[in-house]
């Protein structure tokens, strides 16, 4: 039961999000003189880079049919641990502090991953527990106070730039390219989508689905750590409260990008477009002086429209 006919409706629903993004972009360019300036575009990209990086890892998790609620807390922990190592005139090399932050993120992801893949704890519950515990550890480690006064070489990650392009955008780009590579071009990525599409069938096909799921949570922990480091460097503080609620923004971006929460679909590029839509909308509404209270309402509407158009596409 299929057709080779190409109708306008099909194109609209298939590329709906890209078209919506284009329309939004053009409209803002027309209505706001500031919008389409290099400074503003770079500003938008820098703003979305932190959550965007997390959304790449989240794409992998959601593609397996899972969800990771712990990303916001994990990014905070990675941020405070890595910044705490390079405070004042600490002799710890920058790379060591970054690796420590990344190791913490990976450990948190592995922790959730073990409970989910080996002990069959539901993803929502396992990562909720990880989220709560990780946030608690942040407070314990910092005694609830933000970490400030760390070295400039660390801050450079958030505030520096290569030519005109800020470092966070470059890091985001690298993570996106890595994500696209692994999800679309490797056996691992194919297996991720197979496990998300039908875990039982993937097992019968000889895929070690437990391991695939485990690795996806590790990836999500990794990207959360990178995001945490970028955020701490940009804001020049290691905040134990950082990233509160970011998990939902990351999930939003992935869903707007066309992934189904039941697994089996999702693309890194989609998550980028989802992030761009959120970023451009927020920026545009700011430029047009719309209150941030309304922005939340509009974001909610975008999620619904995205999911509905995805439904229509699948019918």
């Amino acid at each position, binding site marked *: *039961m299929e*057709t*080779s006919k190409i109708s306008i409706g099909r194109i609209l629903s298939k590329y709906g999000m890209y078209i919506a993004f284009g329309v939004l972009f053009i409209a803002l360019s027309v209505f706001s003189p500031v919008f389409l300036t290099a400074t503003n575009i770079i500003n938008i990209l820098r703003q979305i880079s932190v959550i965007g990086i997390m959304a790449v890892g989240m794409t992998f998790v959601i593609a397996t049919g899972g969800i990771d609620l712990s990303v916001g807390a994990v990014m905070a922990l990675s941020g405070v641990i890595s910044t705490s190592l390079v405070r004042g005139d600490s002799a710890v090399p920058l790379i060591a502090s970054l690796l420590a932050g990344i190791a913490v993120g990976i450990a948190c992801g592995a922790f959730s991953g073990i409970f989910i893949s080996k002990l069959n704890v539901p993803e929502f519950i396992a990562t909720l527990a990880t989220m709560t515990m990780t946030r608690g550890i942040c407070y314990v480690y910092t005694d609830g106070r933000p970490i400030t006064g760390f070295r400039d070489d660390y801050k450079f990650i958030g505030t520096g730039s290569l030519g005109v392009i800020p470092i966070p955008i470059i890091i985001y780009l690298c993570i996106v390219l890595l994500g696209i590579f692994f999800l679309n071009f490797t*056996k691992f990525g*194919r297996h991720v989508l197979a496990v998300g599409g*039908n875990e039982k*069938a993937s097992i*019968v*096909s000889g895929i*070690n689905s437990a391991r695939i799921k485990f690795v996806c949570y590790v990836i999500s922990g990794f990207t959360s750590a990178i995001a945490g480091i970028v955020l701490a460097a940009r804001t020049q503080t290691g905040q134990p409260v950082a990233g509160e609620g970011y998990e939902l923004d990351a999930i939003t971006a992935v869903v707007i990008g066309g992934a189904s929460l039941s697994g089996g679909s999702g693309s890194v590029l989609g998550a980028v477009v989802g992030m761009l839509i959120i970023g451009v909308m927020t920026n545009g509404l700011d430029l047009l002086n719309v209150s941030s209270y309304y922005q939340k309402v509009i974001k909610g509407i975008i999620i619904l429209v995205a999911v509905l158009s995805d439904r229509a596409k699948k019918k």
Partner: protein
Amino acid sequence: MGEHTDYIVEMKNCRKVFPGVVAVNDVSLSLRRGEVHALIGENGAGKSTIMKILAGILPLDGGEILYEGEPFSPKNPLQVLEKGISMIPQELDLVPDMSVWENIYCGQEKTTKLGVINKKVMIAETQKIFDELGIQISPLSKIYKLSVAQMQMVTIVKAIAFDADVIIMDEPTSAITDREVAHLFEVIAKLKNQQKAIVYISHKMDEIFQIADMITVMRDGCHIVTKKASELTREEVIHHMVGRDLSNMYTKDGARTEEFDPEEVLLEVNGLSKEGQFEDISFDLKRGEILGVSGLMGAGRTEVMETIFGLRKADKGTIRIKGRDVRVKNPGIAIRRGLAFVSEDRKLYGLNLSGTIKTNITMAYLSQILLGGLIIQFKKERSVVDDLMGQLKVKATSRETVVNNLSGGNQQKVIIAKWLMGEPDIFIMDEPTRGIDIGAKAEIYKIMDTLAKRGKSIIMISSEMPELLGMSDRVIVMHEGRITGKFTREECNQEILMTCSVGGNVDGN
């Protein structure tokens, strides 16, 4: 109410269009009270579609429906239910954790004057209907404790409890044994006596001629013929269904296309046991052989094969693959040793339904087309997939077609293609032709035959006797977890298989 001879439902010139395809084209169908009307056709013929229209699940695009002579345009399933039309879907939708009576009255609970659920009355009513139909299930037992056949009965009773006058059954026997089928038919006969109109959708010719009063054949969305069952023969029906003659479905001859030693034993199973599931299972499988496994539902056939494939663990026994003892801890090991497994439940264990044909076919042996063990070589993947789709004649517009949109037969071919990619030596096929139409069945048989000629070995679990007798070189029969008979093709017949399946003894082996 009209007289008994009057039509209770008349569907006139009904039409249903899905994007790009006319699923039901100008089909008229009339149902009488007290009559079993069989609806036959290959998958994709439109029979389920037209019944879904009647059940209010799909909207009508053209034509009209009359209910007791009055125009009736169903808008949703509930409205249709209230009108007295009930459809029993192929996939049973019962709530496993609720009891039988709760399921039966789910959505139409009887209450006392105070609005409190009246449990007593509902349990008593359930029991009453069970007694009338001779069903032996406790209204209080939980659904998950029932067998598939019992669940089927509960679903039917649910339809009756809704006071349905028209009951549509979509492939009701696809998952139950012959004995259970007999019971189902008794129930249908009783419903007929109660002047219900019954639509019976099925692939199985034997059943249809056993139970139907009227037969309607559909093909490619069109109405082909409606006649009294007594005025049609089996061959005529098959001819109408496929539009071609299928006198010789089972392709099997001794000719080999490749040189191999037919005495070489590829698989040897010795004393395989699992508490409560099967005991002391021993058999061997030679190269180029099709070994049929017969038995009733629950005989443990699937469990044994899943154990050999590493999906379950045995307590005792050994598995020797190509002369080497193998501890098959997971399917990965089995696959590396040259085993392939085609599950009885395509959708649950075989396919990633939301994936494309391409990703499904390369799911198991993706490693073969990797560059440096990491990157997928897309060009190679495309050519491998196209080649396999061509070999197995998978009908689809492209390799990027989503598998969910394929017919059952084509889905099954995609699964076989997936395994063929790795050129395994041993295929375990569990009910390989279940739920697929006759034309596709013949093609699957042909594929199996080709594989055997090339020196591949096949273990085929099947509940269809003609299929077992037509395709197997040898047959083993299981009953309650034990092997109760082993026969060669020549020794075997339906009676022997049936006797062993129910635990009886057959002399001579």
